[in-house]
């Protein structure tokens, strides 16, 4: 047995059944070992596709996704997918080939300092210097990627280590990294203070973020919410913690949040924050965010507590343990919930857009309503915000979105990973004409593995979100947003062997929804939308969340 075979065996021992990757010189011993291993390998057409597919796989399963690439350009192509996993707390194990140890540091062919390049965007990383360390490194890689606040790790494997012979069962040599601290019980005194605040608040709001789903606490959260009966708002990654339409749910807060959510938070006297990191897109102007609210902040990551907003009560630890104790508290005042609910009704989305053209928000609502329970991936741009605002979600795990990094090109590979994670599940991706082209090569992966992914391409012939900002904040000085020379997307899809359904008028949407629902194979749904459509509401950058725009401002230049 050699190092590469040991690696594939250890991956199997970790319960890995699938890896996403792309071969090349320095990783060839591992590709050779794959031939005899039980691991399924998915060949993407770009390493970024592999990293994002593993990322999507991990988001759906909660288990670490694994991606493989060669040294040099293979490793650098993984970087965006690793950074995406870092900012969204996704467990990912990235394995890169490296030039042979004696050549490291000599600018050898396809040598880059993978560990140095990825250091700021991983939880931890290793160069395997000695094959005897490999077992322990792999074991720890999975523990670190999945424990506490999940995230990516990198294992850089020099080629000479990969081909070095090892004993059949080398003994475990402890690798250098401390054992994970899995201390998760929150402080009792702080818990008491938090429960007091919950009990005495007049205008409490519960703010739920990515941590609710990451900690596997969606059901516990729902039990708490239905007991406490305070209005619930979510971050982008919290979408789905309560099912769309739930009477307590005011929607998403922040830059493209609902009026009901943003106003409730701004008026609240208590904000109960669960698994959130007070991202600037969520808080708007930080020093005017929820100005009158005491803050109870529950998070597994101590470094998030007080990073952007100092909490009144900090509960560092496992959300499950906290929720369990919160359930015993008394409900929030009915009158406050009624006020928030009235505002929710007053500002409910309206879908009666005039004209013949397709109204993207309504299409998103109708399709996600008809396919409830499907996994919805999206790319980045206006369409991503419309999905968060108008999509119908039963659970947060059904909503795959690149929140922290905002990675255009995320959608299709993430959907591929999601489809591998649930071969019988329904997976739909909403993309824009800009984002689609960023990882368009992965249509070949969809075709090769015959994945029944449905791609809804909302084509406005421009980089819509950038266009909207130029319209609102740069005095309509449009710069580098025109995509009117896009290719014929149906010809592109056809060249990959994927059929296209064309939708250009509102009257065609209902039939398209039915056909998407019925279709059993991959499908591109190419939808023409009006380039002038904008995402509303919009909180201009660096303004408080109650300063929501609902139309292009007459004069607002925030440069």
């Amino acid at each position, binding site marked *: 047995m050699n190092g590469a075979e040991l690696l594939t065996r250890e991956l199997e021992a970790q319960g890995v059944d699938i890896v996403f990757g792309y071969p090349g010189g320095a990783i060839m011993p591992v590709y050779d070992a794959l031939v005899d291993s039980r691991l399924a390998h998915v060949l993407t057409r770009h390493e970024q596709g592999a990293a994002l597919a593993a990322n999507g796989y991990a988001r759906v399963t909660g288990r670490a996704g694994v991606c493989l690439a060669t040294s040099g350009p293979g490793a650098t192509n993984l970087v965006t997918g690793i950074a995406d996993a870092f900012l969204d707390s996704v467990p990912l194990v990235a394995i890169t080939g490296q030039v042979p140890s004696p050549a490291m540091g000599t600018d050898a062919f396809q040598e880059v300092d993978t560990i*140095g390049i990825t*250091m*700021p965007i991983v939880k931890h990383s290793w*160069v395997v210097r000695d094959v005897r360390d490999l077992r322990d490194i792999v074991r720890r890689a999975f523990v*670190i990627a999945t424990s506490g606040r999940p995230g990516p790790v990198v294992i850089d494997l020099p080629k000479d280590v990969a081909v070095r012979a090892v004993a059949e069962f080398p003994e475990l040599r402890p690798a*250098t*990294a*401390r054992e994970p601290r899995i201390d998760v019980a929150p402080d009792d005194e702080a818990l008491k203070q938090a429960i007091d605040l919950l009990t005495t608040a007049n205008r409490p709001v519960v703010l739920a973020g990515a941590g609710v789903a990451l900690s596997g606490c969606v059901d516990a959260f729902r039990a708490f919410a239905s007991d406490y009966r305070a209005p619930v708002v979510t971050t982008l990654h919290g979408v789905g913690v309560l099912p769309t339409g739930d009477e307590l749910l005011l929607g998403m807060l922040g830059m493209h949040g609902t009026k009901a959510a943003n106003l409730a938070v701004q008026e609240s006297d208590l904000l109960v924050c669960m698994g959130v990191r007070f991202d600037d897109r969520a808080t708007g102007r930080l020093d005017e965010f929820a100005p009158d609210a005491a803050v109870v902040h529950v998070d597994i990551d101590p*470094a998030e507590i007080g990073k952007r907003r100092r909490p009144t009560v900090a509960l560092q630890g496992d959300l499950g343990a906290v929720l369990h104790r919160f359930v015993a508290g008394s409900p929030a005042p009915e009158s406050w919930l009624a006020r928030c609910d009235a505002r929710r009704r007053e500002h409910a989305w309206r879908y009666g857009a005039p004209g013949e053209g397709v109204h993207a928000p309504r299409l998103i609502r109708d399709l996600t309503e008809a396919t409830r329970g499907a996994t919805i991936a999206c790319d980045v741009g206006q369409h991503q915000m419309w999905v968060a605002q108008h999509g119908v979600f039963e659970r947060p795990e059904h909503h795959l979105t690149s929140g922290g990094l905002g990675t255009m090109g995320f959608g299709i590979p993430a959907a591929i990973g999601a489809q591998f994670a649930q071969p019988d599940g329904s997976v739909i991706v909403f993309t824009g004409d800009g984002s689609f082209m960023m990882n368009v090569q992965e249509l070949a992966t969809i075709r090769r593995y015959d994945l029944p992914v449905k791609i809804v391409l909302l084509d406005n012939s421009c980089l819509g979100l950038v266009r909207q900002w130029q319209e609102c904040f740069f005095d309509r000085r449009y710069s580098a947003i025109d995509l009117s020379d896009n290719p014929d997307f149906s010809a592109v899809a056809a060249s990959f062997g994927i059929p296209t359904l064309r939708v250009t008028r509102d009257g065609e949407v209902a039939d398209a929804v039915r056909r998407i629902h019925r279709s059993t194979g991959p499908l591109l749904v190419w939808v023409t939308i009006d380039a002038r459509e904008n995402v509303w509401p919009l909180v201009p950058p660096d303004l408080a969340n109650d300063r929501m725009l609902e139309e292009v401002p007459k004069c607002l230049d925030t440069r």
Partner: protein
Amino acid sequence: MSRYTLIVQLVDAPGALVRALSLVERRGFRVVDARTEGASSVTVEVEAAGRSLLNLKRQLENLWDVEGVAIGGSG
């Protein structure tokens, strides 16, 4: 601009020192001075304006090859 001293206990591992020091800079502190004591401890003097030292300490403690962080005197 405030100046602080941090004593960072490290696992004796390749890259541990670089990882700790680069995190300090990345989180908005300037490393003014760093003195190692063997491979397992480094005393770092940092400078920053408007940054939370406690938060930096927690970020450092999150690193897998950091055993612990103590805050020394500020100047």
